[in-house]
């Protein structure tokens, strides 16, 4: 009995850690959707860009040029990933989303345009970094933390800590700063917010930058635990969408809960059904969710879309 309990707790811990990574990616999607009602299909490729930025910062720049030791170098690389993500977000916002918004595009065109951006980013990185997987060693991945019968790596502890900090910071920003309030106002009603003197274009650009910065950091956290190739992030995008839908489009709390839930379900699927069935289970859940409760876990009172 205690063995079973240990197993359940251990898998839940694994699931939460995985879920935190998903939340970091899905939150950005949901933020952009909430404010813009549009999907950024290249979002998960920002994760890959973040991972490569972190990789080169940690292994080439920080340790070689600055002589910073392992752990410090890796922590520093989180910030370079954040910067890379933010920069990319700004670029895509200015080059793709803003012109499409000005021309009054429907929901389809931004989706297709960002699919193009996704293909461009993936193959651009393929040309730069090659198809051979990179070995991104985080010094924390080698550490094992033991709590009674439960084991987890230092990396997973860091993932949970950074995700929690990022979510807390995002919440504080949304609640307490003027820009955060402006962002929520634009999300609720773009036109009215504009009439109240809020510069909606700035707010939308800011949202995309924040979302992309989150994706970049997620990449730095993800890099050391997966095989790092130009297509690492691409494998995440569909699952991130599933999470956004399960949580309810544009709903932050729902997305966080759904992300953790999907992580935990995935951990138990690996334990009891085998890793080959992960996607089947997650997407069966998505379809079931769309049949039973299309508004997501936490329903918002919005009459459109469903």
């Amino acid at each position, binding site marked *: 009995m205690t063995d079973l309990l240990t197993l359940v707790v251990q898998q839940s811990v694994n699931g939460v850690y995985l879920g935190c990574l998903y939340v970091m990616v899905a939150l950005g999607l949901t933020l952009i959707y909430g404010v813009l009602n549009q999907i950024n299909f290249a979002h998960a490729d920002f994760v890959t860009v973040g991972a490569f930025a972190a990789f080169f910062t940690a292994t080439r720049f920080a340790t070689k040029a600055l002589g910073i030791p392992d752990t410090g170098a890796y922590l520093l690389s989180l910030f370079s990933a954040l910067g890379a993500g933010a920069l990319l977000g700004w670029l895509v916002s200015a080059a*793709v989303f803003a012109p499409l918004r000005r021309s009054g595009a429907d929901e*389809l*065109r931004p989706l*297709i345009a960002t699919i193009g951006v996704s*293909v461009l980013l993936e*193959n651009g990185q393929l040309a730069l970094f090659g198809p051979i997987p990179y070995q991104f060693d985080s010094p924390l991945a080698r550490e094992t933390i033991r709590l009674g019968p439960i084991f987890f790596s230092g990396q997973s502890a860091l993932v949970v800590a950074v995700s929690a900090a990022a979510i807390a910071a995002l919440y504080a920003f949304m609640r307490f700063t003027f820009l955060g309030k402006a962002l929520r106002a634009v999300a609720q009603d773009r036109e009215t917010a504009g009439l109240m003197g809020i510069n909606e274009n700035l707010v939308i650009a800011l949202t995309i930058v924040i979302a992309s910065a989150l994706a970049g950091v997620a990449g730095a956290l993800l890099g050391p635990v997966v095989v790092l190739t130009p297509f690492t992030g691409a494998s995440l995008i569909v699952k991130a969408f599933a999470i956004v839908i399960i949580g309810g489009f544009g709903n932050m709390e729902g997305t966080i809960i759904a992300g953790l839930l999907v992580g935990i379900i995935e951990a138990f699927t690996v334990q009891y059904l085998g890793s080959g069935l992960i*996607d089947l289970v997650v997407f069966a859940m998505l379809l079931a969710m769309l049949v039973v409760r299309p508004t997501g876990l936490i329903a918002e009172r919005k009459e459109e*879309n*469903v």
Partner: protein
Amino acid sequence: MSLLLVAAAPWLLTTGYWRGILVLCAMNVLLALSLNLVMGYTGQLNLGQSAFFGIGAYVSTILIKSHGWNFWLAALAAILASGFVGLALAAFATRLKGHYLAIASLGFAVITYQVLINWESVTQGVRGIYGILPPVPNTVALFYLVAGIAAAVYLLLDNLVRSPVGDTLRAIREDEISAASLGVNAAIWKAFAFGLGAAIAGLAGVFYPGFVGTLVPDAFGIIESFTMMAMVIVGGMGTMIGPVIGAVVLTFLPELLRGFGELRLMIYGLALTLVVLFMPGGIVQAWMSVRHKTRP
């Protein structure tokens, strides 16, 4: 004129490689036509068309290889199978709109792909099915066959969208609530378009395995859905000729860019983004406006 060009195509491109591309092109035209019916004429954002393509390919191949069916009988069964799966998905998916339908259909495509990988006793999983013969002896004949079918489907759909049914579908696309207030049963017509689109994609799938010779799940990943969507958008969604042009351009563009080596797909991605940004109605609309300007 264009028919003549199509008929002459295999004699203009004489190498085996380019003739293969021609077959692929005809298949892509079929796929783009199928998606355009759903997306362009009924306004349903469907990202799962690759699943129906895959169902058509697998059902026909398994019936032929494992059960010894005649090709045409198996083809008919495959078309019906993908059509019915499409109808089944539509039965609940037509309640969803916009991005919700997009993700639901995408989820369906992922599930289908995973079933193809995991149901090894039937599909042979990632190992794939080998040694599949085309229904006709050579590439040129296969091209004429698929191109002929694509032309027939084009005529069928062209008549359909000009008929009152086409008006109904367009009415649903423009404003579902208004259409419903005029007595249109939107759910049924949306399901009809979805199912017919699925069946046509299944029809394209019937010819794919014989053309390639092998069948693996990777050919029906979600990226296939995006490629089809790109064809429809780049050509001109909601017009009949647009998706055909899109399919031809996007089949040949990557081949012509082969000289750029690794940069090929980068340019492809960039081109897709630029077309969406600067040619909102696709090539067809851009062409029309150019002609409009040059003629006083």
